[in-house]
């Protein structure tokens, strides 16, 4: 295996376990413990992707979550693929197959790179400005090309086969980040006995301390690595602490509610993934939160700062110390602080040549620079890189001296050959989670970073995310603040060895010898926005930092202010002469790092997507070939096609049978509310429009319920079972909201009423039998009920028995036929249904579904709340004035019926419509006009709410709401359709049996 850039020893990888993987079709090797990035670098591969807009070659830039360039796509089985993953976070496993994104035909030769040559004519806002007109090109031309050009990876085309999980967790202390600060906080908190959760997004703990130079960093005479290991082992033994690695906090909400994503199997070979949960989404409620999220190293902004082979200095240190990988052989370093010198010394110690260090400062008396001078490493003080060469890999840097005031470059340019440029622009505290939680930041003018200032939650920040740098400071702060925060006293003395040197100098946009505008100084690599784009946005009048962000796309997408943010703010602040503290930052939105849709959805896929409610007779319907309709969460039998019948034919047959013989309907889904209490009658008086006090025990009554705004809300039949006992039925879809509304009024407006409500929808199964033979069938099914009209008239109920089962039979009708509803305890539903089918066999009993039910009631002009009404319809509009009590002093919605608007005469009113051609069936939802014009728009006067072909009347019928409809009876109206205009005549809403004779047939 060729790992040319792998050092012969060192690192935390397992050199005895070789892992093979594919990158862009080529098989490569790495070791167990490598990330994709470290394995590629070991193979000498820097070029991993192409940039978003200009398709410039881009290489691995960092070593973690902040990676802006090396976004790749993992290819799995057909159609299954994971886009936009960071090579720096993918742990390699056997048979991992990765390809580069955003390039075609390949990362080495990308046609889209032509954009690079046109970059001067595609600046910020190019798309907004260019694709404006003509509008006719939007859909077919512009969208097509923009979609082709846009986007990063490709989304999968097949269903996600992986398993995802959700987990809820409560803890007293959540510690986010297990670097030195987080570990120290955990170590301190551990002794408190509190329930603690410690999480880190990486696979191993210790943060950046993990790869610090062991000669210059020590804790209690231990190497950093040993201290981390010992601390971690102690924590692991503590039963109060739960520790999760590969777990990234995505979002930090109010009241210490956090969402985290744990990766469980992404790092395992495919064969070990099978049957296991891939990712778990944690929903955490923590009493207290300690943020120890660390800091992210900044790049430097100069011309062509984006070439492959330009990397963050700390990342290069990590690759050599953790993975035994040297990222180059002729190394140059460009810095404004001492930290980069640790990288130089580390590499030098491993035998890698440091050609030069370019430092914008004029000197530093820190430990590490001094050591570099001793080692003979060439340092160019007060200098800057002005340009880099090398298309697919850096091969030269151009360096110039800085002027005294740092505003210009002076003297002669000189070039240095190199194959790697490490950049270090200092560190930015990772305040993303802090700001998500509502925390306010303050700007440190000397050190040039934002740090946590104030938050309202039970939360602290410790370590470098709090703007505290230096190992000693971090450890002591973590210990002190944790003690104070948890009100404990667990002090331990630490003897910390760390290099000295805090001198730091910051230049947001480095000066150049070129004409401004001729440079490509990338501020945000991921979104390809340059310092010139930001200047352009400012010239064009964008002042707010949020607007600049949107116009230039800086800091957007997965970056969310990790790499491409501080410099954009700095440049804006300099140009507009605004203090950074006053400018503020853009909003860092959740998720901090991307989350899969699979994890968000968890187990709620397929049949578990939503709750499905089935009636006790569901199995029978299924066995008898029913087609189902979703009504809210319910599955209702829609129609029962027999012998390959079409829906139309089945509904016609069912509707005819219900009027000529007998029909049977499963009405179990109707909402049922049991109402008891000495004020039950008064309560019904207040919630329904009609009067209830005089309803006799044993009788049923139809009721209409309004909202306080006077609009129809629900309807149904309520039966008086006893002096203080009613059972109310509601519409299937309205059951839960009606119950909620009634409870609301009882609890808040009328607490003095003695009324108790219980939802009993699921407790009863309801079998509705209608038609001329229904009485005969019921007589066969039930015992001890006298069905004579005198004893058991319409709108009354009887208790009875079916064998030994108690039943309640109501004589009520939604079809206009003689009709009975049998209510039994739910678990007897199917057997009673089957009994009815058996008893009705000789009478031609026919099961009918909701569609035939809708047709039958439409023949009678009965409304369906939600079909004839839409929240803007009053009972008066429905021509149901008869149900609105004039005598009752008050009921919900009464006052609103007398508002000037609800009393308007030209409101849309409920009417029937008949077509000239009885075979012509109107389309439900079709608009109605009084006057036809050649072209739309025409004035619409209403719309069709229900429309059917009636097999019992042998003609089409329709219901509609039409402006001033009450006065239009007999008048002609028109329904314009795409291919013709249908003439209709306004009619009565009752098409069949106006006298209601069939109820007693």
């Amino acid at each position, binding site marked *: 295996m060729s790992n040319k850039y792998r050092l012969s020893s060192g690192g935390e990888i397992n050199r005895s376990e070789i892992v093979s993987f594919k990158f862009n079709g080529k098989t490569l090797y790495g070791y167990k413990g490598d990330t994709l990035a470290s394995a590629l670098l070991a193979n000498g591969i820097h070029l991993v992707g192409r940039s978003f807009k200009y398709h410039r070659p881009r290489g691995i830039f960092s070593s973690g979550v902040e990676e802006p360039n090396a976004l790749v796509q993992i290819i799995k089985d057909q159609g299954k693929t994971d886009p936009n993953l960071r090579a720096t976070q993918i742990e390699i496993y056997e048979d991992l197959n990765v390809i580069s994104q955003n390039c075609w035909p390949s990362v080495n030769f990308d046609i889209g790179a032509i954009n690079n040559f046109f970059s001067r004519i595609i600046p910020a806002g190019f798309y907004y400005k260019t694709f404006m007109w003509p509008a006719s090109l939007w859909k077919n031309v512009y969208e097509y090309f923009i979609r082709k050009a846009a986007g990063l990876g490709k989304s999968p085309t097949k269903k996600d086969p992986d398993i995802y999980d959700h987990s809820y967790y409560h803890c007293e202390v959540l510690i986010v980040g297990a670097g030195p600060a987080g570990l120290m906080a955990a170590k301190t908190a551990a002794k408190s006995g509190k329930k603690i959760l410690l999480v880190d997004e990486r696979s191993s703990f210790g943060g950046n301390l993990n790869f610090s130079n062991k000669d210059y960093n020590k804790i209690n005479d231990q190497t950093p690595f040993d201290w981390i290991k010992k601390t971690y082992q102690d924590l692991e033994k503590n039963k109060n602490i739960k520790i999760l690695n590969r777990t990234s906090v995505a979002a930090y*909400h*109010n*009241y*210490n*509610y956090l969402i985290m994503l744990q990766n469980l199997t992404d790092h395992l070979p495919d064969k070990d993934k099978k049957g296991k949960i891939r990712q778990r989404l944690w929903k955490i*409620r923590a009493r207290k939160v300690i943020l120890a999220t660390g800091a992210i190293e900044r790049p430097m902004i100069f011309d062509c700062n984006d070439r492959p082979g330009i990397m963050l200095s700390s990342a290069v240190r990590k690759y050599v110390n953790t993975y035994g990988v040297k990222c180059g052989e002729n190394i140059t370093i460009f810095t404004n602080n001492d930290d980069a010198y640790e990288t130089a010394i580390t590499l030098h110690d491993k035998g890698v040549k440091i050609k030069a260090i370019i430092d914008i400062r004029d000197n530093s008396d820190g430990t590490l620079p001094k050591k570099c001078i001793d080692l003979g490493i060439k340092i160019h003080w007060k200098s800057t890189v002005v340009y880099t060469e090398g298309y697919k890999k850096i091969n030269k840097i151009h360096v110039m001296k800085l002027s005294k005031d740092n505003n210009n470059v002076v003297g002669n340019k000189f070039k240095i050959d190199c194959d790697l440029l490490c950049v270090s622009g200092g560190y930015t505290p990772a305040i993303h989670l802090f700001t998500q939680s*509502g925390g306010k930041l303050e700007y440190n003018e000397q050190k040039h970073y934002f740090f946590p200032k104030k938050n*309202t939650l039970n939360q602290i920040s410790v370590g470098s995310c709090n703007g505290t740098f230096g190992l000693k400071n971090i450890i002591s702060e973590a210990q002190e603040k944790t003690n104070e925060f948890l009100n404990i006293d667990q002090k331990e003395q630490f003897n910390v060895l760390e290099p000295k040197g805090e001198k730091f100098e910051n230049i947001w946009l480095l000066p150049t010898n070129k004409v401004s505008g001729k440079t490509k100084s990338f501020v945000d690599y991921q979104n390809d926005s340059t310092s010139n784009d930001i200047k352009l946005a400012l010239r064009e009048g964008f002042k707010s930092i949020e607007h600049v962000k949107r116009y230039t796309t800086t800091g957007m997408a997965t970056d969310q202010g990790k790499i491409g943010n501080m410099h954009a703010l700095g440049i804006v602040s300099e140009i507009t002469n605004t203090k950074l503290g006053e400018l503020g930052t853009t909003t860092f939105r959740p998720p901090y790092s991307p989350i899969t849709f699979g994890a968000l959805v968890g187990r709620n896929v397929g049949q578990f997507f939503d709750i499905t409610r089935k009636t006790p007779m569901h199995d029978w319907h299924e066995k008898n070939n029913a087609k189902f309709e979703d009504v809210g969460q319910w599955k209702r039998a829609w129609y029962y096609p027999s012998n390959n019948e079409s829906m139309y034919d089945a509904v016609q047959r069912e509707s005819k049978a219900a009027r000529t013989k007998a029909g049977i309907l499963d009405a179990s889904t109707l909402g049922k509310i049991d109402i008891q209490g000495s004020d039950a009658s008064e309560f019904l008086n207040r919630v329904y429009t009609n009067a209830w006090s005089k309803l006799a025990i044993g009788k049923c009554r139809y009721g209409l319920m309004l909202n*306080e*705004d006077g609009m129809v809300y629900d309807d149904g039949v309520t039966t008086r079972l006893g002096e203080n006992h009613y059972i109310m039925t509601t519409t299937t879809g309205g059951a839960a909201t009606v119950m*909620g509304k009634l*409870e*609301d009024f009882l*609890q*808040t*407006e009328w*607490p003095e009423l003695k009324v108790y409500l219980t939802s009993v929808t699921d407790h009863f199964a309801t079998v509705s039998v209608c038609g001329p033979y229904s009485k005969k069938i019921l007589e066969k099914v039930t015992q001890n009920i006298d069905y004579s009209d005198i004893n058991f008239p319409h709108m009354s109920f009887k208790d009875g028995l079916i064998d030994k089962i108690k039943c309640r039979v109501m004589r009520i009708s939604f079809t206009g036929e003689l009709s009975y509803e049998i209510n039994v305890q739910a678990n007897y539903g199917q057997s009673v249904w089957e009994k009815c089918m058996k008893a009705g066999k000789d009478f031609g009993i026919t099961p009918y579904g909701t569609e035939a039910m809708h047709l039958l009631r439409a023949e009678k002009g009965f409304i369906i709340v939600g079909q004839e009404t839409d929240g803007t319809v009053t009972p008066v509009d429905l021509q149901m004035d008869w149900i609105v009590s004039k005598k009752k*002093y*008050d009921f919900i919605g*009464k*006052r*609103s019926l*007398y*508002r*000037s608007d609800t009393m308007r005469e030209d409101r849309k009113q409920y009417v029937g419509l008949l077509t000239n051609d009885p075979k012509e069936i109107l389309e439900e939802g079709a608009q109605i006009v009084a006057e036809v014009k050649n072209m739309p728009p025409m004035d619409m006067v209403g719309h069709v709410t229900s429309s059917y072909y009636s097999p019992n009347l042998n003609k089409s019928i329709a219901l509609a709401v039409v402006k001033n409809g009450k006065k239009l009876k007999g008048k002609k109206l028109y329904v314009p359709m795409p291919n013709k205009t249908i003439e209709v005549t306004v009619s009565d809403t009752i098409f069949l049996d106006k006298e209601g004779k069939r109820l007693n047939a």
Partner: protein
Amino acid sequence: MFLIKCPFCGERDHSEFSYGGEAHLVRPKQPTELSDDQWAEYLFMRKNIKGLQYERWNHLHGCRRWFNMARDTSNDKIHSVYKIGEKPSK
């Protein structure tokens, strides 16, 4: 994502509750005697305050009881929760 202290059940997750609009609106005892404007005032007009606001909440997926909450809408801090009919504690 609030953590709400139901006056009947104690601290529960936000997802168990539903919001019910402005609190302390009393339904007029004699609606028929109100002018259209007065009725519209009761029916439609609601405050939308930046700052301390009194609201109705229902522990829908819990005890199903209604209660009131004093909440600062600028930072979502819940100052108090109290039963229907009670006054907010100062």
